[in-house]
């Protein structure tokens, strides 16, 4: 309580309000997490810059190569966009399992990224889809970076205090195999014990390219390069499904916490990967 809130009316206005680069002046969109973090004393802020009603930050646009959407687009608007959900099926699966309808009506991808929670549900699919995020500041203009490069550790990002997450760009991925999995103690409003996304570019049953990302298994969402390297160029068969287990085991480093033991989370990460690969194999063999 006691925090001052400025309502930004435009993108320029928002960047102006953040320009002093004061770490205690924070951008906020839907506020679904910010209210709790400030209330619980997990974050200190003397002033919030609300971007919830900045029109330039709420849009979904596609061309032949990619889809761009504003960091302030409410999750329910992404979920209601049929083209988006058909193109980015793993992201759509994550959206459907994201918190509750009420929270999806306020929460944004910008917030989910900016919080840098290792359990963030939208981050694994977006990393697996090779999303880029565009950050902007009044002093230095725009920069675009791969989403995984933004995260430094638990709750830590490389986003400067005067920077705002402006938009997300995702290359077209309709032709790729996509999977998302989330494990929790119930279906709604649950923080993932483990979540993961796997995207495969398949040539028949051969894996041309693979992208894999895991949540809740490390201090930040993990892009699992060893898993990707293991899968790349490999035949999608039973031996690959068996063999990936050891690679995932080694790649993840979960801890024991209230949501589950490290051993359990490691097992979930392995099982989810194997399930996704088995589904991809079935699909590839069926369409060959």
């Amino acid at each position: 309580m006691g925090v001052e809130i400025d309502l930004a009316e435009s993108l320029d206005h928002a960047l102006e309000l953040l320009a002093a680069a004061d770490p205690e002046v924070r951008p906020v969109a839907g506020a679904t997490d910010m209210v709790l973090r400030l209330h619980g004393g997990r974050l200190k802020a003397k002033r919030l810059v609300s971007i919830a009603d900045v029109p330039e930050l709420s849009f979904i646009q596609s061309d032949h190569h990619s889809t761009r959407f504003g960091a302030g687009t409410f999750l329910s608007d992404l979920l209601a966009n049929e083209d988006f959900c058909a193109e980015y099926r793993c992201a759509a699966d994550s959206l459907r399992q994201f918190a509750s309808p009420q929270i999806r009506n306020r929460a944004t991808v910008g917030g989910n990224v900016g919080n840098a929670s290792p359990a963030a549900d939208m981050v694994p699919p977006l990393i697996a889809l090779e999303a880029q995020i565009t950050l902007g500041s009044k002093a230095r203009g725009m920069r675009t970076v791969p989403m995984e490069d933004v995260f430094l550790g638990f709750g830590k990002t490389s986003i400067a205090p005067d920077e705002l997450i402006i938009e997300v760009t995702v290359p077209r991925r309709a032709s790729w195999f996509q999977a998302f999995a989330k494990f929790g103690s119930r279906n709604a409003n649950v923080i993932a014990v483990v979540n993961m996304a796997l995207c495969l570019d398949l040539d028949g049953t051969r894996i041309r390219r693979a992208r894999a990302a895991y949540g809740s298994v490390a201090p930040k969402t993990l892009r699992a390069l060893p898993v990707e390297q293991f899968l790349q160029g490999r035949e999608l068969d039973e031996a690959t499904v068996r063999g990936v287990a050891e690679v995932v085991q080694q790649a993840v480093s979960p801890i024991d916490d209230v949501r589950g033991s490290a051993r359990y989370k490691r097992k979930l990460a392995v099982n989810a990967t194997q399930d996704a690969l088995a589904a991809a194999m079935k699909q590839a063999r069926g369409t060959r």
Partner: protein
Amino acid sequence: MKHEELTLQINGAKRTGVFPRGTRLLDAIRRLGFTGTKEGCGEGECGACSVVIDGRVVNSCLVYAKQAVGQKITTVEALGEGHPGGLHPFQHAMVETGGVQCGFCTPGMIVSGVRYLEDGGPLEDAPIKDALSGNLCRCTGYTKIVEAMKLAGKRMRGG
């Protein structure tokens, strides 16, 4: 603590109050007299504080009051307006099926349910349960609430 004056548009009328900075929408609307909206968990888990902002159901405990300035806020108090007996068909159906026991979750449940029915959501178990998944009820086991949704939906659609 510093205070500020906020004018909120609640159920079609402008209401002004003076609130401490950083006040949640939940606290503001309750202090303005709309006590149908309840605080359950205060963490966005239970949905007892559900209200509608510009057509979307949100947890009013997770929105700053100032962010809702200039937007249309609808609370449970307004949902029965213009309906026979001052009750929305879903409220009537909840009475009939016994969807209310202790009643604490009911206002939030009504807000989510009415929005879904007014939006023309399908009257099947899975999507209804999904629409109500942000509202916890510890008494009914949900069976009678889902029943009330279907009953109200049929009546609203002339079935």
